[in-house]
């Protein structure tokens, strides 16, 4: 009898205890947030824009071949004094609970970053177990975060995905931006030894980006593009670095993967292109006469990508000369980047960090006035070694030597 009773009891207990139905949330009760934008309005409140994926129009349209009437994402905005409030206030508008685990980008308005700083923004993101701090963070340059969030993008349907892919592709192809993660910014904010850098993103044109028609043409009215690297002092945006200076910053952070370096040749501007394939930059702090100095060493490998003048590339001496020119060019970019950071008194390279870990006793002396005195008077010794490994399918260009 007891055995029969037991046989029934075990499944009964298992069914009630092992199902795990406590606070279940089905997928159709969640609104997947793909991007968050944060602005500030005149009343001093935060304006949050939440880009939410429309599951129906993303999944169905390709298989049926018919474009659906609704756009792939919907943007809701709300205002509040804090970030949790922003997300709560959305519940008055959206039919589902916001779900942040799949958020791929956080956009912060330039104005907000410049005037108020970003330090109050990130705690909610850091604390919440649902939100991932590996999420990318970007600055909306010359634009409201809201406008950026609203733009529809042509190739990748979900705009947030599009932005992320663009940043990654651009990072590997040109090395002029860095894909900063929320955690890295929080890290930099929590220490005096480093200041944050965040890539900026801008709109090519102000336009009604929220309409589906805007991407139903071969050239969309407005697209999102990389707009340089934002330099922060503590938590406040102070300056922008673009193109070569930006690349110098990325070099110093040792984040450059591939890039093209163009050099002048016999009066022809940017006539030889060096395709860098890999590089390694080491930053070594040294103390000379009690003063901090930094030794930067770049080692680069690459191939010749393009030659617009007649050069005999089969001659090793020519390649040596090109290498030297490339060295000079990279060196220039690095010093530009360091100058820029010094002007703004912001240690975006984390030199302070490396001094702290290598010279802890000296660091105690530097620590208090690092950014104001020691960093802005820091001497940098830059050494670049670049190597040309191959010259492509041709050695001599088809151009006949006219000089």
């Amino acid at each position, binding site marked *: 009898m007891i055995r029969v009773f037991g046989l029934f009891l075990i499944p009964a207990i298992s069914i009630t205890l092992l199902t795990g139905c406590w*606070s279940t949330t089905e997928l159709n009760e969640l609104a997947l947030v793909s991007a968050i934008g944060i602005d500030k309005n005149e009343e001093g409140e935060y304006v949050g824009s939440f880009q939410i994926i429309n599951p129906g129009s993303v999944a169905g349209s390709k298989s049926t071949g018919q474009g659906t009437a609704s756009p792939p994402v919907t943007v809701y905005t709300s205002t509040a004094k804090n970030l949790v409030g922003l997300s709560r206030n959305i519940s008055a508008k959206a039919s589902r609970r916001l779900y942040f685990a799949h958020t791929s980008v956080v956009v912060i308005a330039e104005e907000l970053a410049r005037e108020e700083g970003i330090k109050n923004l990130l705690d909610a993101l850091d604390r919440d*177990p649902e939100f991932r701090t590996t999420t990318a963070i970007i600055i909306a340059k010359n634009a409201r975060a809201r406008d950026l969030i609203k733009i529809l993008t042509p190739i990748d349907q979900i705009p947030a995905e599009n932005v992320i892919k663009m940043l990654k592709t651009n990072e590997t192809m040109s090395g002029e931006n860095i894909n900063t993660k929320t955690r890295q910014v929080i890290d930099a904010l929590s220490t005096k030894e480093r200041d944050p850098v965040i890539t900026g993103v801008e709109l090519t044109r102000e336009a009604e980006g929220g309409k589906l028609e805007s991407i139903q043409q071969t050239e969309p009215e407005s697209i999102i593009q990389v707009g340089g690297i934002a330099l922060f002092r503590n938590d406040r945006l102070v300056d922008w670095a673009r193109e070569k200076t930006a690349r110098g910053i990325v070099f110093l952070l040792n984040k450059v993967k591939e890039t093209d370096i163009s050099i002048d040749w016999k009066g022809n501007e940017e006539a030889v292109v060096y395709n860098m394939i890999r590089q390694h930059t080491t930053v070594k702090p040294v103390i000379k006469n009690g003063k901090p100095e930094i030794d930067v060493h770049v080692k680069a490998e690459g191939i010749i990508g393009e030659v617009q003048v007649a050069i005999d590339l089969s001659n090793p001496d020519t390649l040596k000369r090109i290498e030297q020119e490339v060295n000079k060019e990279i060196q220039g970019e690095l010093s530009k980047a360091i100058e820029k950071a010094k002007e703004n008194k912001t240690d975006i390279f984390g030199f302070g*960090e490396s001094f702290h*870990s290598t010279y802890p006793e000296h660091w105690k002396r530097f620590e208090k006035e690092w950014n104001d005195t020691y960093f802005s008077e820091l001497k940098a010794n830059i050494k670049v070694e670049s190597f040309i490994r191959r010259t492509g399918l041709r050695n001599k260009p088809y151009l006949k030597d006219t000089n």
Partner: protein
Amino acid sequence: MEKAKIDAIQLFILIFLFELGSALLVPLAIEAEEDAWLAIFFGLAVGILIFLIFHALYQTYPDSLPTQYMRNIIGNYLGWVLGFAYCLYFLYLSARVLRDFGSMLLTIAYHETPLFIVNLLLILLIIYTVYQGIEVMARTGELLFVILYVLAISGFILIVSSGLIDLSNLKPVLEDGIVPILNVAITQTIFVPFGEAIVFSVILPYLNNPKKAKKVGILALCLSGINLMIVMAVNIAVLGVNLTKRSQFPLLTTIQSIQIADFLERLDVFFMLALIIGIFIKITIFFYAAVIGLGDLFKVTNVKQLIYPLGLVVLLLSNSIASNITEHIQEGLVIIPFILHFPFQILFPLFLLLIVYLKKRKKNKA
């Protein structure tokens, strides 16, 4: 005590899993900043000494439980009171670890589930395991050990191969000298997790080959200590001191930072498995020790009768020992080491050993 035996490998695994237990998950010794691993090392060194103390007691009385030999050493009444205090200590620690488990799970995943429910599910499992006895516990341990190691090794490979480790985060070594590190070791790592191995004084009599106890114990402590050192060093190398300090569960944050090839990411389940395996074994051993000890003290013929009521006590205690996670952790870091861990892990065993030594000398003289 029940009639059962475990072999040396099983004991090794139980000690190992017990040591990793909750220590794997929390920012262990992070007050020592970059040198957390060194503080763990010092804790390990002293932890081995503590093990040697109660191992010496075990060698004198290889077949009896601590609750029995305490009465032999310091007299029936005093020994009974001390044994009872030890049982309460183990019971309290099982409640503490259960609370750790509940708060972790709630913080990470189940925000809306009441603590009581989460704790209830685990304690039911533990009651069942303890009911089955030490041999089943040991075999479960063997199984879980393999799982945990596969997880640990694959996790480590993933972390290394995604290029997250930045060894410069571990520098400077010994920035403020050795004093702060010893300080952390003395106030924390000696007691948690290494000193806690005192609970194995209850398990040791079950060993089928008493001669191996010393070797097995020290090896298990060393291996778990080395593992903890590696985990903490990896945490700091990946996250940096600042973030590790601010994290409730640095290992979770470390695992979350793994991103390989756009699809190997969000491996939180690694952490969850480590959490459940480690904590399950840890509570089971504490709870088992308390049950066996109390059964012996109160001369209960069938010890298994005690398991359900005591399980309920642990469950209720785990809910009521602190009103929030901060209070719970502060108690564990600031108060418990001095008023509980120090006397129970070092002072009392040392005192007992001293009396045994004096008695022996007297005997030899006579």
